[in-house]
């Protein structure tokens, strides 16, 4: 049952710069969680380090503000230990696509049911405005001494190449749309990623809210746009189409769902196949002791480790 978004307001003062695009993300996230009918204790927001990294503190839900670049593997452990939790990763573009790129790729490969929100502001906000991995070559944002030397990585392309089964883009200033995308991502069973275009009012004077407003268009309003893979043999075609959309950047910038693969099993399902008790009794919920003693007694021990036992002949 949907609750009010305020339920997800932690009450902590938000110390982002006035006007920062992150405000839209927090608002959309609170709304999405409320509309999904979740309760605060069922949700874990996992973040990295950066302005974006502070997000969990502003959400009334379990919050894990981890290390720079490591939100994804932290989230992986949380989700695998207790798959009943709704686990959402909130990270910066530097965090997820620079220092954390290896984990970003690995999550795609795993298709674990986690939704990843990239706060894509093209800069390292909290360290004062250096180029992030999404800033294009030759662009000079405010705090850079010289124009950027490196080419950007395209978060959507990287996500598609890595195997994410849900890939979308949204704009942090369109809270309603972003909310919907977040809800879709959370509902999607498997690894989902949302590239959120998030203006940094303090350091990014190139990709401003205005810049985006002039270019954004909505895929769901495009006639015939259907990003969903419903059968395995549609995969290559849908993936190719998604990639072509992902490369569109300049005059027009698409937002919305680029790709959604409903055919791949999640890691949880795969584990369950191997460990039948997994869903019923995941690691975090198993009884491991009886009155302060190991549940594995001598008899069980000998059964479990049978192959290490040698019966001594008389």
């Amino acid at each position, binding site marked *: 049952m949907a609750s009010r978004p305020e339920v997800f307001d932690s009450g902590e003062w938000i110390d982002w710069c006035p006007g920062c695009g992150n405000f839209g993300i927090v608002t959309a996230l609170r709304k999405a969680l409320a509309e999904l009918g979740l309760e605060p204790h069922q949700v874990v927001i996992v973040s990295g380090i950066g302005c974006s990294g502070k997000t969990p503190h502003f959400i009334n839900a379990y919050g894990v503000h981890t290390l720079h670049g490591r939100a994804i593997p932290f989230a992986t452990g*949380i989700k695998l230990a207790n798959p009943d939790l709704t686990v959402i990763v909130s990270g910066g573009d530097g965090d997820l696509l620079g220092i954390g790129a290896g984990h970003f790729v690995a999550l795609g490969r795993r298709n674990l049911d986690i939704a990843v929100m990239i706060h894509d502001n093209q800069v390292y906000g909290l360290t004062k405005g250096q180029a992030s991995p999404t800033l294009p070559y030759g662009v000079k944002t405010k705090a850079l001494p010289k124009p950027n030397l490196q080419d950007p990585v395209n978060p959507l392309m990287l996500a598609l190449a890595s195997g994410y089964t849900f890939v979308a883009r949204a704009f942090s200033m369109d809270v309603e749309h972003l909310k919907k995308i977040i809800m879709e991502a959370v509902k999607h069973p498997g690894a989902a990623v949302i590239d959120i275009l998030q203006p940094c009012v303090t350091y990014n004077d190139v990709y401003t809210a205005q810049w985006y407003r002039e270019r954004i268009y909505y895929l769901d309003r495009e006639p015939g746009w259907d990003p969903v893979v419903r059968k395995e043999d549609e995969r290559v075609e849908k993936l190719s189409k998604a990639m072509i959309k992902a490369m569109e950047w300049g005059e027009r910038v698409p937002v919305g769902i680029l790709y959604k693969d409903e055919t791949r099993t999640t890691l949880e399902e795969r584990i369950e196949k191997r460990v039948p008790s997994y869903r019923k009794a995941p*690691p975090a919920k198993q009884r491991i002791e009886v009155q302060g003693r190991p549940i594995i007694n001598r008899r069980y021990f000998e*059964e479990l480790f049978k192959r290490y036992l040698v019966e001594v002949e008389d």
Partner: protein
Amino acid sequence: MQELDEIRFLIGGAQGTGLETAAQVLTTAYAAQGYRVYSFREYYSNIKGRHSYIGVRVNSGTQPAAPRASYHVIAAIDAESVFMHLDDAGKDTLFLYNADLESRKLSGLPAIEEETKKYIRETLAGSGYGDSLGEAIRYIKEVKGARPVPLSFNKVLSEFAESRGIKVFAARRYANTILIAAIALMTGLGPDKLRRGFERRFANRPRIVEDNMALAGIVAKELEQYKNMVPVRRPKRKPRRLIVLSGNDAVAMGKVVAGMRFQSYYPITPAQDESFMLENIENLETSQGQLGGVVVLQTEDEIAAITAAIGAALAGARAATATSGPGFDLMVEALGWAGINEVPVVITLYQRGGPSTGLPTRGQQADLLDALFASHGEFPRIMIASGDHEEAFRDAVLAFNLAERHQTPVIHVLDKFIANSIVTMEPPTPESLEIDRGALVENPDKDYKRFSLEHPVSPRVFLGTPGTVVWYTGDEHNEVGYISEDKVNRRLMYEKRMKKLEIAAREIPEEERATLYGDGGDFLLIGWGSVKGAAIEALKVLQDEQGLDGAYLHVRMMEPFPARYVSKIIEEYGVGRVIDVENNYTGQLARIVAMNIGHIVRKRVLKWTGRPIYVDELVHAVPRVLGGEKEVEVLEYGI
């Protein structure tokens, strides 16, 4: 022949030629007779082709726990194994080799490294021998007093091929069985008993068992004259069952018993076998059904391994990761996060030869100071170092109890010498062990604060617990977990964390953190980890052979360090009669002792060749160091 309390043999051959199988077959066969077995393995960082060997001790009384430098039998599967073990051949050692290879030259063996060839060549030339295998055998016989046992492998294998109707080519794969058979024969392990070893190794493959037994028969016939040459006495005591396990297995078993249900890892020698073993029994299948399951996750790197384990621990699972030095290096940042967030996560650290990639398949004890201070800033951690398989098992359980009780990361330190050596152990009685999950809250009230300053250890909730929410952050935080840079909060929150170490120090008796073995007053050895086995046995040998009566202080916990106890013992002996024994260069334990109690133990016996400390070389070194001939004695036995 006079029966021996213990027999020792070495089998050598190229990697990928079945040495491990040979050792397993023999070990199980002896264990099934009630013998206590210890076997260690040396191998290159290579998949196929380089020389490898396994040293085995079979004892009729006590459990051996370190290598000895003298062997009753050495069995060489190839030419390399003859050249590599010239030093190991001793008086009367039966030295089995392939007589077909007598003309082989050292220079024609590319698998032996140039430096080693030089060493071998000098050894032979030093006594006037050339560098062919025949010369090496003469050297072994004439200089070392060993008894060469030539055997034409071709002949034996041809006969075998013919008798079993297989191709000679296929028969070659059974070369390792020749070693098994020869050793069984020489040590008096009869065919029935040997068969048990094969049966176990090749369960459900009776054909292979028969093949092996047939070949063993042929070998026995050929080597008839060596039968029972080094017979081992019947075991003094026969337990009903024995476990045959490696150090990796011991830790894995401890973890399962402790209730660890999540392990994330990235493969690395010599840690990985622990995770494989866990993966294999992930279902916890028993006669009463599935007792639960262990999720074992192979991650993309060690950073992911530890952070995933921390995540799982936050969610409420007993969680761990296992690695060795290079992987540990990558975990350092997350270790600090676990520290500031008071997360009970266990890191099993298997030391190997460093620095850097170092000697990845060899052993060392050189990560102690690193592990003790790894990660910037200050936070409490607990560090346990196990000295043998029994300790490894129990400490694996203890690690989780301490981690949850004190809400700190726990580093459980082992080394390759323990990880990769295989011993016999009586099955443990897990019921006698405790599971202490520390302070937990299942139904938090409105005022619940995860990091309450009321007590240093604040009760935990797991992620997902209804009734509250909690924030974790690597930043300094306030009682609910929100970032706080306030100076007063900072001081108190920092103190809260650090005080937990004082509590742990108060709660864990110092005598459990360090143990004194022996009570001789002549000298005191001090050491840790795998030194234990060699040190305790050396005490006995020194007493028996030289009338020197010493003791060994085994330090098992480096943090909280048992300062008073260690201080007391060292002062009883006087620091001049204390000898630090470590498998490293800088005497890391001695440095920790100095740091904690101000005594600088300057007498040291050290080794850094990547090989284990042999009882014999320690026995040799102790009187020299004690007598003041040298302050530091450097060991280097073992190729």
